[in-house]
């Protein structure tokens, strides 16, 4: 920790003190607590200012070192991390001070948005400055009482920030009086390092808040400060503490506050943006993986990784880098122990891809008992003649050809020459023993299966696909860009019968073979179906030219689906190879054939106990088929172009079970969707992929991988079988204790993926990960990664809806989250008022993110969300990695008013309040990309972006921005391109004009706001969460 400390600031904003580590140290600073803050606005400032020195005291000082400030502050225990609101928070009797700091004072330093400004002094708690009045003295805030209520808006809402105002935090909230509160402080604490805090002042500015009641000023600073301050600028942040406190945020305070304030100030509650920015700011050095138990920078941060013995976070991210030693602890904390593994992740160009290690004919060296592969955790003993397995402790002889002497430290002399002894990730060349049927694999094949029914032809899909495939043939995956790909290709078209094509190079014209016996699918030809692109290029091109013509006049509207996959599967079987099917499909398969489906979309079932059945496949056929596909290594990618219900839940079964992907283009129109589709297709065809993969996760004694989430199939409890595994697929693995872990050795895991590379080589990719173990809960809470936890929760929940009513699933999530936080509060945070919300520093975003999960279309569908969309998202999320889930659940919203080259504008929080009528904003979720244009945007901006001076002339149907020769336009398009490049799916740009109808869709992604479908706003949810926690605690 110490080291970090420097950074301190960051840590938690809210809650708890900043993580120990960094953090806080400085905190002290902030802690302005001292400042009596409470009082007037002025106070607030003080905080800032003062903070440094004095402030801390209370909190800080008290607090262990640094961190915590915030909430926790007090909590000695976890000194660091947690943010949390200082325990005390409001409840706290005054005590806050310390604790509160977070909010209040403490934070101040940092800025935590905090909650409250807790005026350190006593009142710290105060977020709520206002309300609190009464009671509180100290805590000011919120008197406990209110707590509940407060949280929510309820309280006084009105007043507080007047709704409108919201945007600016300041005003609103800050009811003058209170403002003082520490809120600011708190907030600050989290993030901002002490230093920053200082700045708070500045924030002030931002905030404008002042404007309001004025009071704020004082406060504002703080808060903003927290995040904002530093950054000041961001409009977004700046929320006045005021209202907020109540709810969640300041958790602590909240409650009480409410009464007072009525509403929590959105700026006073933990801000994702702040956390993200803080993390960016502190991650300047490359991240080295050698230190066990160290959490990597957030997924939103750009950083370089140096592999020093553990897998890069690009391959493996854990929910906790400090695992509880015992099952009891784990159970008590309820923190999920999971890792998100993305075995074939693509690395940035400046990082070396895993080395390929060849151990010769004998195959990779492995532990005799548990079969773990040679890795840095193997301990060589007896002069290097044997090694002891780090996982099961079994001692194995070193084969003579692998023998090497040890140096004085017991390391092999060649340790650094061998990737498997020094790195976290590397590959082994597998021998024939690792191959199916003990035969080296045949080169893989890609089979393109194109729906040519009426809808497909009409929408233009068929001709687009055919046209594109001609080009794509040259971009099949290969490992060496110099060489031709060895992947063979085959083509099938279908409606209610299938047409196979013989494209043998010796033919002048392709030949079509029609199979109408769909009830019992088979492949009608062998030779000439799967061909080498170079050899058959002319025939293939001729075929692709003719397909659209041949079916141009088709009147066939019925399609089959099951037989299509069967056909591809049989073709691969016949060729005895693994491969991938690309299915381009348009409609519900109602033609008489295996896997025939009926339309079962029934909105009436939503919200009932039967809703879950809609997520389950309607027939068992596809499960069986998926199993067969997996056995053959047949991965299925499905491109859907539905005009109506197609039952994605059922059609997606095979793709999802075979490691494939589903792409959906509802109401596909060549004009507007072509680009998105083609980019997806290109990427899907070109991306690195492995076939016929099996993943096995081995762990050291004490824990065990018990559950897996993702796109794969499991025929037993340990082997994750993936017919195909591409660079975008992540698998979430949950671990459970089956024994005690020791702090000394930590917990080890080794994820081995056996696969066939696209060059037809059988390989093993190994990722090793070691994490610390702790016997103190505080340690656990200090080293968690909220983004990963959210990834786990979302996958867990989305799988849960298969078998449980969505309401139950939501409740479970809320409950578990509450338990996690309650456990922290109870065991780690310093004692404080029960009414104070204290969040661990590294989990302070848990509520906001969790709320996003709860509000997602899957768990809480709006009226306009189709069943297909939900099923689609459900399946999609199941194989997302942490980066993707993060942006998916908490979209990135960039203000575009000013663009600089080289850096992106700082994002703002996903709330309407943060949008300025005069601005233009870009929002991306990984799936969608919106350009929101405020109604009173400046002409110049419009000219720069759209080339038109008038808001009214903007064509909202455009899917790409006009290419204009001005730096702004260039930069904006650059940004958009770079966003698209970062995501595995191409995002179609939607231009949304304020007040336009389409804005509804856009608003859906402003996840901190209340959603149309009834999802709680962040503030409301935080309050609710706080209530839950309090209930648990009491």
């Amino acid at each position: 920790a110490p080291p970090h400390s420097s950074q301190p600031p960051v840590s938690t904003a809210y809650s708890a003190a900043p993580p120990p580590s960094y953090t806080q140290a400085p905190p002290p600073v902030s802690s302005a607590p001292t400042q009596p803050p409470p009082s007037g606005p002025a106070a607030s400032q003080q905080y800032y200012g003062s903070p440094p020195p004095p402030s801390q005291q209370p909190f800080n000082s008290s607090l262990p070192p640094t961190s915590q400030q915030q909430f926790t502050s007090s909590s000695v225990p976890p000194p660091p991390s947690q943010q949390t609101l200082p325990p005390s928070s409001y409840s706290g009797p005054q005590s806050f001070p310390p604790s509160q700091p977070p909010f209040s004072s403490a934070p101040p330093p940092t800025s935590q948005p905090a909650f409250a400004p807790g005026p350190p002094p006593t009142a710290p708690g105060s977020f709520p400055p206002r309300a609190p009045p009464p009671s509180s003295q100290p805590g000011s805030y919120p008197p406990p009482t209110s707590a509940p209520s407060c949280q929510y808006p309820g309280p006084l809402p009105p007043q507080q920030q007047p709704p409108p105002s919201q945007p600016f935090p300041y005003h609103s909230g800050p009811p003058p009086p209170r403002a003082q509160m520490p809120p600011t402080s708190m907030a600050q604490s989290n993030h901002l390092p002490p230093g920053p805090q200082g700045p708070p002042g500045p924030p002030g500015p931002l905030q404008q808040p002042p404007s309001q009641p004025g009071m704020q000023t004082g406060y504002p600073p703080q808060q903003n400060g927290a995040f904002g301050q530093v950054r000041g600028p961001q409009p977004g942040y700046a929320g006045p503490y005021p209202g907020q406190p109540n709810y969640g945020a300041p958790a602590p305070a909240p409650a009480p506050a409410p009464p007072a304030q009525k509403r929590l100030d959105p700026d006073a509650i933990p801000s994702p943006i702040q956390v993200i920015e803080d993390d960016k700011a502190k991650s300047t050095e490359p991240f080295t993986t050698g230190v066990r138990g160290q959490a990597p920078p957030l997924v939103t941060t750009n950083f370089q990784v140096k592999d020093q013995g553990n897998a890069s976070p690009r391959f493996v991210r854990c929910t906790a880098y400090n695992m509880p030693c015992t099952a009891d602890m784990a159970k008590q904390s309820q923190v999920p122990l999971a890792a998100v593994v993305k075995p074939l992740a693509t690395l940035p160009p400046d990082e070396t891809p895993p080395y390929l290690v060849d151990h010769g004919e004998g195959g990779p060296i492995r532990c005799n008992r548990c079969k773990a592969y040679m890795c840095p955790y193997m301990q060589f003993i007896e002069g290097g003649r044997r090694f002891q397995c780090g996982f099961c402790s079994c001692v194995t002889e070193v084969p003579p050809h692998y023998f090497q002497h040890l140096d004085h430290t017991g390391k092999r002399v060649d340790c650094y020459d061998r990737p498997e002894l020094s790195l976290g990730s590397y590959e082994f060349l597998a021998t024939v023993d690792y191959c199916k049927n003990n035969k080296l694999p045949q080169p893989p094949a890609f089979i393109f299966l194109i729906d040519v029914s009426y809808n497909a032809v009409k929408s233009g899909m068929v001709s687009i696909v055919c046209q594109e495939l001609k080009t794509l043939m040259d971009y099949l995956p290969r490992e060496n860009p110099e060489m031709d790909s060895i992947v063979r290709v085959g083509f099938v078209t279908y409606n209610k019968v299938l047409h196979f094509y013989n494209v043998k190079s010796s033919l002048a014209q392709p030949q079509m073979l029609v199979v109408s016996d769909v009830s019992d699918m088979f492949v009608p030809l062998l030779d000439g179906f799967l061909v080498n692109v170079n050899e058959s290029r002319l025939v293939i091109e001729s075929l692709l030219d003719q397909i659209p013509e041949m079916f141009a006049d088709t009147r066939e509207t019925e399609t089959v689906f099951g037989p299509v996959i069967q056909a591809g599967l049989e073709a691969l079987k016949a060729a005895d190879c693994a491969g991938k099917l690309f299915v381009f499909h348009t409609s519900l398969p109602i033609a008489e054939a295996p896997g025939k489906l009926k339309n079962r979309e029934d909105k009436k079932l939503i919200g009932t106990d039967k809703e879950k059945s809609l997520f389950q496949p309607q027939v068992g056929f596809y499960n069986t088929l998926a199993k067969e596909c997996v056995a053959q290594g047949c991965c299925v990618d499905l491109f859907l172009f539905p005009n109506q219900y197609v039952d994605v839940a059922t059609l997606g079964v095979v793709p999802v079970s075979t490691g494939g992907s589903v792409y959906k283009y509802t109401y596909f129109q060549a004009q507007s969707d072509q680009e998105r589709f083609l980019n997806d297709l290109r990427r899907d065809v070109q991306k690195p992929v492995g076939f016929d993969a099996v993943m096995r996760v081995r762990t050291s004694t004490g824990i065990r991988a018990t559950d897996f989430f993702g796109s794969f199939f499991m025929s037993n409890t340990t082997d994750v079988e993936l017919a195909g595994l591409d660079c975008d697929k992540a698998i979430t693995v949950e671990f459970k204790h089956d024994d005690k872990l020791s702090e000394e050795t930590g917990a080890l895991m080794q994820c081995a993926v056996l696969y066939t590379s696209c060059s037809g080589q059988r390989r093993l990719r190994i990722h090793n990960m070691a994490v610390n173990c702790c016997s103190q809960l505080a340690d656990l809470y200090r080293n968690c990664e909220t983004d990963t936890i959210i990834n786990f929760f979302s996958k867990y929940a989305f799988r849960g809806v298969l078998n449980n009513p969505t309401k139950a699933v939501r409740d479970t999530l809320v409950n578990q989250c509450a338990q996690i936080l309650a456990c922290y509060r109870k065991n780690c945070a310093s004692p404080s008022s029960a009414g104070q919300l204290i969040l661990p520093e590294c989990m302070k975003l848990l509520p906001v993110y969790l709320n996003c999960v709860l509000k997602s279309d899957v768990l809480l569908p709006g009226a306009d969300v189709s069943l297909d969309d939900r099923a689609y998202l459900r399946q999609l999320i199941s194989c997302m990695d942490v980066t993707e889930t993060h942006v998916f659940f908490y979209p990135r919203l960039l203000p575009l008013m000013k663009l600089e080259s080289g850096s992106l504008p700082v994002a703002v929080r996903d709330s309407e309040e943060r949008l300025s009528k005069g601005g233009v904003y870009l929002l991306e979720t990984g799936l969608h990309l919106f350009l929101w244009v405020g109604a009173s945007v400046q002409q110049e901006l419009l000219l720069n972006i759209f080339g038109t001076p008038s808001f009214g002339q903007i064509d909202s149907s455009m899917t790409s921005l006009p290419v204009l020769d001005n730096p702004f336009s260039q930069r904006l398009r650059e940004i958009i391109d770079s966003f698209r490049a970062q995501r595995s799916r191409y995002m179609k740009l939607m231009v949304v004009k304020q007040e336009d109808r389409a804005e509804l869709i856009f608003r859906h992604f402003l996840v901190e706001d209340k959603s149309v479908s009834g999802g709680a706003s962040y503030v409301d949810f935080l309050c609710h969460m706080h209530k839950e926690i309090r209930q648990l605690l009491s």
Partner: protein
Amino acid sequence: MTTYQEFIQQNEGRDGVRFSWNLWPSSRLEATRLVVPVSCLFTPLKERPDLPPVQYEPVLCSRANCKAVLNPLCQVDFRAKIWACNFCFQRNPFPPSYAGISEVNQPAELMPQFSTIEYIVQRGPTAPLIFLYVVDTCLEEEDLQALKESLQMSLSLLPPNALVGLITFGRMVQVHELSCEGIAKSYVFRGTKDLSSKQIQEMLGLTKPAASGQQGRPLAPQDAAASCRFLQPVQKVDMNLTDLLGELQSDPWPVPQGKRPLRSTGVALSVAVGLLEGTFPNTGARVMLFIGGPPTQGPGMVVGDELKTPIRSWHDIQKDNARHLKKATKYYEAMANRSAVNGHSIDIYACALDQTGLLEMKCLSNLTGGHIVMGDSFNTSLFKQTFQRVFSKDNNGDFRMAFGGVLEVKTTRELKVCGAIGPCVSLNSKGSCVSENEMGIGGTSQWKVCSINPSTTLGFYFEVVNQHNAPVPQGGRGAIQFVTQYQHSNTQRRIRVTTIARNWADAQSQIQHIESSFDQEAAAVLMARLGVFRAESEEGPDVLRWLDRQLIRLCQKFGQFNKDDPTSFRLSESLSLYPQFMFHLRRSPFLQVFNNSPDESSYYRHHFVRQDLTQSLIMIQPILYSYSFYGPPEPVLLDSSSILPDRILLMDTFFQLVIYHGETIAQWRKAGYQDMAEHEVFKLLLQAPLDDAQEILQTRFPMPRYIDTEHGGSQARFLLSKVNPSQTHNNLYAWGQETGAPILTDDVSLQVFMDHLKKLAVSSSA
């Protein structure tokens, strides 16, 4: 009066009929005592270049269950313009168009020389002929190439408006769509799945709803022909199809070591039959199946694909060890029947060194009038020329093939028809002239013969039902009318009517007459057909016993002998050759399976029951000619004694044509004397049998296997197995050294056979 010999020939020439008896015993009892039933060989479409068809409809008896055709035997009252049916005695008025009829102005059908007459009728739309090629692609490259060439050649032989279709099969079955341009399309069926006709039609998109939605260009709905993309006029798709055939590749699926290629013959046929059934029912069509091996998978499989399991032999069959036999046979029978119902015939061209499953598949051709051709390879002249001959034309330039024949038999009331043996199926038409006693395919008076050519000959068996106590009036005549409706190869519908009559004779008083009216050649063939028919369902020895029994009874009935004195036994001239025919029949491959595979037996039997009398006799008793310096070629006894060193023998067994050079001749030939000017004669002698053989080869269908061998040659076995083994290793020394060649066999010789026959015939205990 002319001799019976002449009478018989005249009748045969005019009507294509040969009766076993040309006088009919007048009662049932007497008829049964004659042993050989009243029966005939009838060649429905015997070529009659001198018989121009008439262009009007036949006049039918108005009685509903008679409908006999007006014929020369009918009593006509020219004044009343009434005719009396000679079968049911119904009096019928002539139709209006016959108003001008009088003694001097008679329509053709009333003239005695028109006892056989052919009508061209206008009924319904004429449908083009259909040829559907079903081609096995599991062939060696060379074979496939040869086959492709033959098929391409055949396109030029088809009438331009004929519809052609192509189905290829191996592991899969492909139905090629012929109408398309650009991408060649075909529909593929899995070779292992038994599909119903309806399923097949659905999958081919032939059913209404499917047809509308099938991909591809919209179908021209005008006529049925255009709507079927799989059958197109030759002239339209000639080029296309030639290319398609040219691009045919051997079945691409790998055949592992020790396996046979997977050949889905059963499904291919089923698809072919289903396709025709759905598109052109009751239209003349030929399914031409070309196979290079046995069906090895799916319904109708004859043998598994493991090479270590050999295809069934007679031995296996007798031991009930042929696993797939029953199932496959049943499958093909069902298909044959379906096909027959729709009037489509199925040809099988099987060229392979091993068996190809003809035993199981024979019914396809047997029931539908199709051809079976068996050869060693498609790359032989045997196949190529035979195949070409399928498309041979008559003097009018019409194909020698007719389709969709329905043959009806009407008899006068003293006779009933028991059945028919030939390439036909029963139409189950029960009428008053149908006997309950079935012989061959019985229980009906109508048979369907899906494909008829001028030599197609059926055997009909009758029963005299007149009771002994109700004698036929003196001079009464029995009559039989054969009405054959068919589709001529020029697509006309035609009806050929043959009416014949024979006198009744009282067997007690006129037994000599009856005896002399015996046509022993016809009788031998007719009895042989009965024997072969039985052999299909009974054990070989039983059939032989039955034949022997009949022979003995016949000899007892007509022989002149003293009881128990074999040496006194004599047979009249009209029966003298009959026992010898029976002797050779017993040894023939039609009844003996030894040394023949089940396929060969089926093949031989197939041809035996459809060829005309002359060819049938050759099959029973091959003809042997001898060529020597001592005179013109002469027929010689089919006896080992005819095999002499200085002779060249030409044997025609119908299936084989053997030229055998005697020992001396062979030596001379080897010495090259024929090339020396001074031995010109020898050269001519060598050439003579070749020329004769060539003549036979030219005309026969299927083309026989041509064997040129010599004394001591391995192929000489073909000759040695046929000749009467009068000299064997057993009696060699009893005979002169110089006369003929001994045959190494334990078979009895004709002499021994006759001795036994005499003994049994004269035996009082028999």
